[in-house]
């Protein structure tokens, strides 16, 4: 099943996909374009942990002139950088290089502590699509990638759907792609991850307990290009969804 979280009729609703429409929790059916899409996540009792991978596809590491890491390169994002499907991401004034990153996002479904790789799929609730924008002008070599690059307001579109893990037989066998104004600019495949999803869950849960609703953004393949205000960026993963985002000029 595909789950969404939407604002409609002055309230926030958990919803599911139903024959090309959204079925709200109260049973009403509404059109996709009648709602404001929010990140497809249920509320959690404490701030969710959002782990994000850098250089987790060999081709992207090469593109950025880094050798592939020997252990996961991870950074953490605050929840307030998340926005939903069909929303806008701000390009700051005066920057040279702002790029999207299409990523498979894992949503944790059960408390996970010291989980072995062989059991890792048991703790996953489902998957969604993340677009982990970066402003490369702001990169500094202190806790790189630093938060000014990766934790900006509107910088992390997520959605449209949370797809149940049961409906994704093999998350390590999915095609990813990004289009900018309809032109294909990024194309990759989750089988090319350096650290695959079970490996990442084993690694993180070895020292930190993950809780339901926590996220792992698993990194992006080769093919990132600069985006300008007005560009429509669609990050899409096979069987998970197509996440639409538009670049906006700074206010």
């Amino acid at each position, binding site marked *: 099943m595909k789950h969404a979280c939407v604002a409609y009729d002055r309230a926030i609703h958990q919803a599911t996909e139903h024959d090309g429409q959204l079925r709200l929790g109260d049973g009403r059916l509404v059109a996709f374009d009648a709602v404001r899409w929010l990140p497809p996540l249920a509320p959690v009792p404490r*701030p969710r942990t959002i782990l994000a991978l850098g250089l987790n596809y060999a081709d992207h590491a090469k593109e950025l002139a880094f050798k592939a890491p020997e252990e996961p390169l*991870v950074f953490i994002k*605050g929840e307030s*950088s998340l926005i939903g499907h069909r929303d806008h991401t701000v390009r700051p004034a005066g920057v040279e290089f702002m790029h999207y990153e299409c990523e498979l996002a894992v949503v944790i479904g059960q408390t996970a502590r010291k989980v072995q790789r062989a059991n890792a799929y048991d703790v996953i609730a489902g998957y969604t699509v993340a677009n982990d924008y970066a402003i490369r002008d702001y990169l*500094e*070599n*202190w806790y790189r990638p*630093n*938060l000014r690059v990766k934790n900006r307001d509107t910088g992390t579109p997520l959605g449209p759907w949370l797809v149940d893990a049961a409906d994704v037989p093999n998350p390590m066998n999915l095609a990813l792609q990004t289009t900018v104004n309809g032109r294909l600019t990024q194309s990759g495949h989750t089988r090319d991850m350096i650290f695959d999803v079970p490996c990442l869950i084993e690694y993180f849960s070895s020292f930190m307990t993950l809780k339901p609703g926590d996220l792992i953004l698993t990194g992006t393949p080769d093919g990132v290009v600069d985006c300008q205000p007005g560009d429509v960026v669609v990050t899409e993963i096979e069987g998970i969804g197509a996440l639409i985002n538009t670049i906006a000029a700074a206010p």
Partner: protein
Amino acid sequence: MSSPPFMPTGTIYGTLLNTLDEWVALSPQMAQPPYKGAPKAPVLYIKTANTWSPCDSPITVPAKATEVEVGASIGMVIGAPAQRTTVRDALDHIAGYVLMNDLSLPHASFFRPPVKYKNLDGFLGIGPRLLPPHEAGNPNHFRLEVRIDGELRQTVDYARLVRPAAQLLADVSEFMTLHPGDVLLLGCGAQRPLAHTGQRIDINAPGLPTLGLLSNTLVAEAA
């Protein structure tokens, strides 16, 4: 009747290199690889919710770690959304101040995000109390003392910051909104003491007894 210990509700952002003694200690390395320059923006990291330990609770040290580094800091708890605030207005967004003990596994490189050193379960002591600004006064006058098993091991002086509280908040809010319940740490100082399993860490602010005493004991991981 005492109120329950304060626990935050938002995201906790830590700050590296915001005390002058840290800056001085690292400045000889700043021009060298991998840093290739002094940081321009505030150097931040996140202490995820799995790290949060209330005051007086034990904190588990993994079996492989011989020592942990103590990171005493003041946390500024946000009360009103802070987005591109000015230095002059910055402190109006603060709901209060709280003591924090930002524990780390000791590490010498600050090139990559410190997740495996700083985001271990329990590695952030918090509390006990949120002190509102009208009781706390000017944050530039705060001082912290760190004791391990009762012995004074470090003082942190918030008159000696790279970015004083208002400047730090303004500079961070330039690129990300701080929301009510979020916390921004002012900095932990250089010369952070090391502690090991069995020891008690106490942090207090002399002159601000109403902030309370943040006390945590390090315990060994169960076999």
